[in-house]
């Protein structure tokens, strides 16, 4: 899976957002903290949920089940707004 071209990841002052172009089917914003920003950066290239979890584990000092739950939540949200090519 990969972030669709119709969406751009944007970060400012600790706030991460997914911003759709005017041609995306979704007109809102997805907002979150640094975790969202990192996951969005990992989704710039083709990857899998397991690879995203592994990359997050390497970067953050947190239990695997917590990270896996965060990743699942973000991916579900992105899937819900049609932001993923799968």
């Amino acid at each position, binding site marked *: 899976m990969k972030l669709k071209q119709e969406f751009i990841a944007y970060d400012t002052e600790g706030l991460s*957002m997914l911003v759709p*172009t*005017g*041609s995306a089917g979704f007109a809102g*914003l997805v*907002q979150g903290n640094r975790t969202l920003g990192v996951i969005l950066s990992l989704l710039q290239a083709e990857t899998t949920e397991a690879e995203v979890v592994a990359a997050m584990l390497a970067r953050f000092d947190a239990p695997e089940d917590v990270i896996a739950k965060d990743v699942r939540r973000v991916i579900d949200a992105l899937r819900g707004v049609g932001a993923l090519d799968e």
Partner: protein
Amino acid sequence: MKETYRFAETVVAVDALYPAVHAYCSAYRCAGTPALTVQITQADIDAERRKSADEDRAEGRPVRTFADDYLETLAVYRKIAEWMPLRGTVLLHGSAVAMDGEAYLFTAKSGTGKSTHAAFWQAAFGSRAIMINDDKPLLRIAPDGVTVFGTPWDGKHRRSSNCAAPLHALCILERAAETQVVPITASQAMPLLLQQVYRPADQAALAATLRLLDRLTQTVPLYRMGCNLAPSAAVIAYEAMKG
């Protein structure tokens, strides 16, 4: 039929199917070599109709019907707004008032009272306050400052002037029981600004829009105003933001 206009110091040729758009833009007519030529087809008008219907459905209201010549005015501005970000200019939904030659821009979700509040400035300050644009001004965001430009796309009350002014402050309006103005940070302003700015369909143009908003929020003082839509709010807002 083709006419040439100047919008935000850019000469734009508009080749339209209907005369209405030329009447709409008449105050901006100029001579010169266009940097952009906008040519409208029936497909552009049909796309505006679909977009409008989609928005009505998304907001749960009956689908409104519009004439082709009105939809063409929207199609023209959409093409201009798509092209502008890669040249340093964005369309921001809001009301811009020039006070003693400096612009104050109010933006908010639809229905909050931007136009009502902006009209209070004219009532409170008379000829010192000039309405630059009551709906969709253009903002040129340069390294040395932000300039607000009037455009013909000025809302249902048709309040605008073919003029420009440096942006002194940007204010996000919210309804509140009492009027209060507080400074806010870029990250506090950005979510709403991203909803109110024109988001191009083209990815590169959207990326440019985000860079320009970054520059805007780093260079212009930002405020949030709780507002009860009392006429006195104009004086309170000006005193808080004039610096």
